[in-house]
């Protein structure tokens, strides 16, 4: 029986808590500050509810589908339904030095935040009931399969040699593309493009961004699944890419729009974090600087130029930041990965291995297509049975009062 290492266990316990923190209050406040006052609780509640729902889904069937005994390289079997057989005995396929159940709960927090990211796309207009159903279906039919392909023992993309250290494709591309589909299917918010919709509390947004950055250390460095040098490398590249991307965004904005903004800095940081995610355990800190700069440049373009041209309403830029960032990151891994950093990985193009870049491109293509297609089908299904959008009147009154009968702030003492 493999031995449990207490140091590795301590680090992954903590990393699990950190990734949980990313969803609430991290993502909840990042998004919550960006919406209008009348929608803040509804927005926060989507992150909150996703943590609750997926925590149970994962224990019941999600983990088994994602990491359970492989069925035809496509999906895990239901053999581990309800955590049957998932004990504290380490599973050497995944993490030989920590309890198997710890690997399970660590992965749970990834499964939680992924649908959480999508909520940025349909903020301020989706029905709460439809959102719950959609998220549950999406986790089961989009996240779990993709997760199995890339990370599951026996998964076909994993077998092909895909490199995705902490979820550039599994988490960010899958959710970012789903976000775009959601934005297109649900359509724009009333008044989008004509009425001003300034963020109601940017301090909350920075609070969220800072907690995301903090939690991301658990996300990326925790993905080493041990407290070792690899974790340290991922920690450093994560911080470095975030810093480089935030600065880049600020300077681009300074140049293009005239001033560097706090929201720009925060958005750049998140773009950098999303982009470095798949690469963090395979590239050097210096490569991370380059990746961070590229992340901010490309995401800025997506958010400030392309979105404006195409005029879809991805309310909080879930696609522009996570979708685009994820794609850049997975491809960058194919460029900058180096066996010197991680012998269990591979070399990228810049270290003489074109094949890896091709594999990465396949990963991007497959994830984009699969997520887009299944997300579309699921949305249409939910639309038919429960509807997607609140009524125009409800949208105008705000979701806090119409979906939850409460309001976030009082006016009087």
């Amino acid at each position: 029986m493999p031995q449990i290492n207490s140091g590795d266990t301590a680090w992954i316990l903590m990393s699990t808590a950190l990734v949980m923190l990313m969803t609430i209050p991290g993502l909840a406040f990042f998004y919550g500050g960006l919406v209008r006052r009348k929608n803040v609780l509804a927005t926060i509640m989507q992150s909150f509810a996703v943590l609750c729902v997926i925590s149970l889904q994962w224990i019941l069937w999600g983990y088994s589908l994602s990491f359970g005994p492989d069925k035809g390289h496509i999906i895990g079997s239901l053999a581990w339904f309800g955590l049957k057989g998932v004990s504290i005995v380490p599973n050497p396929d995944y993490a030989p030095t920590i309890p198997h159940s710890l690997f399970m709960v660590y992965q749970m927090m990834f499964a939680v935040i992924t649908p959480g990211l999508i909520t940025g796309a349909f903020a301020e207009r989706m029905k709460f009931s439809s959102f719950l159903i959609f998220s549950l279906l999406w986790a089961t039919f989009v996240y779990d399969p993709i997760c199995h392909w890339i990370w599951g023992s026996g998964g076909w993309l994993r077998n092909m040699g895909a490199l995705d250290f902490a979820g550039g494709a599994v988490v960010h591309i899958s959710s970012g593309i789903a976000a775009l589909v959601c934005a297109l299917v649900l359509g724009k918010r009333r008044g989008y493009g004509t009425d001003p919709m300034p963020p109601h509390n940017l301090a909350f947004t920075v609070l969220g961004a800072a907690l995301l950055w903090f939690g991301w250390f658990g996300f990326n460095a925790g993905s080493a699944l041990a407290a070792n040098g690899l974790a340290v490398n991922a920690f450093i590249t994560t911080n470095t890419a975030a810093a480089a991307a935030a600065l880049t965004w600020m300077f681009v904005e300074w140049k293009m729009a005239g001033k560097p903004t706090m929201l720009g800095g925060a958005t750049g940081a998140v773009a950098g974090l999303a982009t470095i995610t798949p690469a963090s355990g395979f590239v050097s800190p210096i490569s991370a600087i380059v990746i961070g700069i590229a992340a901010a440049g490309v995401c800025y373009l997506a958010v400030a130029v392309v979105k404006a041209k195409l005029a879809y309403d991805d309310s909080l830029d879930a696609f522009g930041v996570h979708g685009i960032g994820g794609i850049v990151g997975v491809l960058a891994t194919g460029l900058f990965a180096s066996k010197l950093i991680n012998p269990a990985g591979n070399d990228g193009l810049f270290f003489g291995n074109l094949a890896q870049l091709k594999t990465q491109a396949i990963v991007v293509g497959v994830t984009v297509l699969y997520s887009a297609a299944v997300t579309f089908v699921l949305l249409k299904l939910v639309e038919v049975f429960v509807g997607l959008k609140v009524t125009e009147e409800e949208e105008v009154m705000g979701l806090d009062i119409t979906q939850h009968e409460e309001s976030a702030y009082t006016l009087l003492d």
Partner: protein
Amino acid sequence: MKLVIAVIQPHKLEAVLKELDKAEIHLKTVSNVLGCGRQKGKTEIYRGHKETGNLIKKVRLEIAVNEQFVEPTIKAIVAGAQTKQIGDGKIFVMSLDDCVRIRTGERGGVAIG
């Protein structure tokens, strides 16, 4: 000169501003208020208790205009804010004795616009 004060539903603000602009009435002062009228407050739920506040969020507009603009102003506000449902709000019209444009020191009707 008159001062027109309107209390409207917050989500009607954009529409009212548009109607006012159409009517060439560009200057106004806006604030958050709580209204207490015929409309029952929104019910809110706190840990299972339902509470129906009687103070409802409203937006207050203050528009100073010369006499000939009073009716257009009222019309524009009604056009933007009316839903024919309880809570639509009220407009109050009062006489203005004087008006000063701080920038120039101008007084009276010329200062208003």
